[in-house]
């Protein structure tokens, strides 16, 4: 019941806030904060009672449509609990960061809560139909968040986001149906490591690949991301980058690898190549941007390339690293989007040439942005390094061509180039006109960022704080891949 509560508590909150009179925004935000905080408390309670040595835990299974083998099946293992925690935390942060929302606040907070339902659901669903429902559910509130509360080009961006990711989902649906026809069940955990025919695996993997790769996004399927990020309100950007991108890579780890291990091995070189290209391509594009949000958006393409690199390696190092990048990117990119948003609220510009000298004018904002930047470029001791380094180790250890690993490693240098050239212009120097009159972060804003700072340091200094959850799961997946 705990998992059900975690998923549907925000739904209750969403219904309540949606039904409230439109002028009760200040009540709606307190409800949203209370619900997301309670949800986070439940997840923490779950994590404390979670036994890392065991596999799927807190399972709930109720027959739903027994004729078709569809069940309401939930459960968490070390990887899903990691992502669930991130989802619950960032949801709370998104609510608090949107405290000053004045446009249709009741609907806005309802959408944020509905989004959390879908995100939490994706990470705990163990039935394909359920998984698909949550997967698609996420699109609806995000579509409205961008389309209603977004920037000037919000219509184009939201439609593009919606259609692009739906395009991927169609292929995923085909893959799900094919798997059902082959196995006679929709149960994800029952399908793992069944030894399905190799050709069948290859084609189903292709379908899932398209579905997940759009979401990640992998080059060349990434162009929806910068548009969506630039137009989305800050909180939506945080959740989009922090959680929704991870749904794609989570899909690979939860579904594609265990169910289709043979195909995963066959596809590995191709995915490695795309991953390496995503890393350097995203980094080069981030370097060319003049808009802070676009820069962070393209850096996401680069970072998610490391996740794919680790997944394609099929090694314990690579897969642990992949989850570590997922977690760290969620935390660090969350910080980046939040701070950029806070600066934007004050300066009304995101153009790099208009913003400079933050560290002198607003030392707290400048310092935290610098901290997040160094975490993002993979400085050891902060969380970004953990996954980047482990995925490189794993990729080198695996049988993928070494040239791609070298290209990926160059991505680490390029990350420093785009991040630090941003730091040079935005944080350092004398304050520009737009910056010269702004005030530093408020207590609420700092409170939003502090948990993320703490997580960045904790994971970066003591890797096992994260790896103790992921490693047992990864070990099982690696065994499946090795056996295929």
């Amino acid at each position: 019941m705990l998992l059900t509560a975690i998923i549907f508590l925000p739904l209750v909150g969403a219904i309540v806030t949606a039904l409230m009179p439109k002028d009760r925004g200040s009540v709606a935000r307190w409800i949203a904060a209370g619900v997301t905080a309670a949800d986070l408390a439940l997840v923490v309670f779950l994590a404390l009672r979670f036994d890392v040595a065991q596999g799927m835990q807190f399972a709930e299974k109720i027959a739903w449509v027994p004729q078709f083998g569809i069940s309401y099946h939930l459960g968490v293992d070390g990887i899903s609990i990691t992502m669930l925690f991130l989802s619950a935390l960032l949801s709370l942060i998104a609510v608090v960061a949107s405290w000053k929302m004045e446009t249709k606040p009741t609907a806005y907070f309802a959408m944020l809560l509905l989004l959390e339902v879908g995100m939490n659901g994706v990470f705990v669903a163990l039935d394909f139909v359920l998984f698909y429902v949550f997967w698609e559910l996420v699109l609806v509130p995000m579509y409205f968040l961008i389309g209603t509360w977004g920037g000037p080009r919000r219509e184009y961006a939201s439609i593009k986001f919606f259609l692009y990711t739906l395009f991927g989902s169609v292929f995923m649906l085909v893959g799900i149906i094919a798997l059902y026809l082959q196995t006679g069940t929709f149960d994800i955990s029952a399908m793992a490591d069944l030894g399905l025919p190799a050709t069948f695996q290859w084609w189903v993997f292709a379908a899932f690949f398209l579905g997940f790769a759009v979401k990640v996004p992998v080059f060349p399927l990434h162009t929806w991301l910068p548009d969506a990020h630039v137009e989305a309100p800050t909180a939506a950007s945080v959740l989009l980058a922090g959680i929704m991108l991870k749904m794609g890579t989570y899909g690979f780890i939860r579904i594609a690898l265990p169910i289709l291990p043979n195909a995963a091995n066959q596809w590995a070189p191709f995915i490695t190549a795309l991953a390496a290209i995503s890393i350097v391509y995203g980094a080069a594009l981030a370097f060319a941007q003049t808009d802070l949000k676009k820069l962070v958006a393209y850096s996401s393409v680069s970072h998610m390339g490391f996740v794919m690199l680790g997944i394609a390696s099929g090694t314990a190092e690579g897969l642990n690293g992949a989850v570590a990048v997922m977690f760290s990117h969620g935390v660090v990119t969350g910080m980046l989007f939040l701070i950029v948003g806070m600066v934007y609220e004050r300066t009304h510009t995101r153009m790099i040439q208009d913003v400079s000298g933050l560290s002198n004018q607003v030392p707290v904002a400048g310092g935290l942005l610098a901290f997040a930047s160094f975490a993002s470029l993979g400085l050891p001791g902060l969380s970004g390094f953990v996954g980047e380094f482990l995925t490189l180790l794993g990729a080198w250890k695996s049988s993928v061509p070494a040239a791609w690993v070298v290209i990926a490693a160059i991505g680490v240098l390029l990350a420093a180039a785009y991040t630090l050239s941003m730091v040079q212009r935005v944080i350092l120097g004398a304050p520009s006109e737009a910056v010269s009159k702004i005030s530093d972060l408020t207590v609420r804003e700092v409170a939003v960022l502090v948990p993320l700072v703490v997580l960045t340091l904790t994971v970066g200094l003591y890797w096992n704080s994260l790896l103790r959850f992921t490693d047992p799961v990864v070990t099982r997946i690696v065994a499946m891949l090795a056996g295929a």
Partner: protein
Amino acid sequence: MGYIVAIPLLPTIAFALLAPMSGRVRNKAVWVSVAAVIIALALSLVAFVQVWPGGHEGEAVYHSSAVFASIGTMDLGVGVLLDPVSAVMLVVVTLVGACVQVYSIGYMHRDARIGWYYAVLSLFTAAMLVLVLADNFLQLYMAWEVMGLCSYLLIGFWHEQVAPRKASLKAFLTTRVGDVGFALGLAVMYATAGSFDFSVVLHDFQWAPAAATTVSLLLLFGAMGKSAQVPLHVWLPDAMAGPTPASALIHAATMVAAGVFLVARALPIFEASGVALTVTMLVGVITALAGGMLAAVQHDIKKVLAYSTISQLGYMFVALGAGGIVAGFYHLVTHAFFKSLLFLGAGVIIHAAHTQDMREMGGLARKMPVTTVTFTIGSLALAGIFPFSGFWSKDEILTVLWHGEHYVVFALALAAAFVTAVYVARLWFRVFTGPEQSELKEAHIEMLVPMGVLAAISAVIGFGSPYFAQFLGHEGEWPAAPIALTSTAVAGLGLALGWWAYGRRTKVLNTRPLKQRAGFVYGALTMKLYFDITYDFFIVRGYGLLADALAVFDTTVVDGIVNGAGAVWRSGAHVGALIDRYVIDGAVNGTATLVRAAGARVRRIQVGRIQAYQGLMVGAIVLLMLWLVVKGA
């Protein structure tokens, strides 16, 4: 001996205390940092005494470690390894660190961000201590990167000015070029030997020559970035834009020597390769010579010292490449003391003369006796004059080269020693003799005492030369006359030439004919041998153009395909909308009316697209369900 852990921990705590403070409070709390490094120095001296008399090469006197990451059956740890090498490094780092921090009280006292300066110094000291105490290469790499951050922060300390800002970026990125090699080297090491631990990688594991060559060359590449070896040296002269005491600590004595330390630690892998040793030696000798020549044409006193550092680090690589771990490591130690002394002296000189340009200096000897004496000791040590420390370590390096029968490299190293003596004399005579060009005043006591300490060490430490070798577990010898006399003669000749060109104040200083005669070489040297300009043109600007081109490619081609597909879909959706209106609307009338009512006229097409998709999806699911029901029945 658990107190060893406290040595890196103390500066870490100092940083953790200072970093979150507000600027005003932090400026008053700098003593936290100074106290931490002085206690760390005291503990380091205790550790050194406990390791004494050493003698067992590679044998740890104290070792403890803790796991911070477990992957499968593999544990990655952070450790504290006290052996003769790390004991020496502890003393060097904390001693120079303490001198620099005490000196900075005077040097930086008027700076509005002195607290932040000390916070970063503390973090740097902590990272450097974690590095020297590392028991594995991953820990070494992580500390290495954190030092890079501190270097970045200190070079760009006065970031309101353009030059420090640019220099800090250049430093971080150039060293990171090397770090990509280092990181890949770690990956190959891990895939080959299955570990990062010194005990496995350097002792138990039997390296095949090919793998050893790959790993050691990649590690060397990382070391070349950090230790500013040609062709990755370009960042160090620019790094002089930072505060001078920070240059003394980071860009002269400790961090830049970390590359040498890395190669020294990894030397068993280099030896298993063979080729890598030769490459190390070549890189070193080219750098020693190029750095020395570049130092000889600089007018900025700090840039002379920066190129000199590059050159001396090259010397250390030469020694390691020839297999002379003791000689290379000893030169690291002596250089750390005399070069940080020279930098601290340069700081005093710059404050007194209000310029960094040596052409605008002169006559300091008469007004600033302490600075003059200490700086002269440092200069003679650098030039390799008996009995000052540089003489001894340079002699050891030359001896190793001679005995290793590397005669060409030996000759080139002598040439580098000659150039060194020339630029030392050039600097000394320009600064200390001749007419005074400004009101001169000796520095405060807190600045002079550290210089005195470093000068005393530089004056006497050479006599410990053979004991140093024994401490590290090697045969210790006193210098042999032939090589000692040769190197002294070469250095003396260099000093003489320097005096002839710059010291005879009887004539007005005019080196123009000399420059004209050496036209091409001099031109190339003033253009920094074209390294910077080449990198700037091909790499920096090239990458910028490439990135811009890719951005255009991304919006026009990659996204163009998407938008094109969207346009096609949209025209198809019109057809779909017709079907929608007449077929589906008929079936689900009420819903359609609602949707139509909600949709504004402008948004019609877009709503139509969503609708079309929803129609498709609903249709697909309905068909699927039907099919399942039929099949199930």
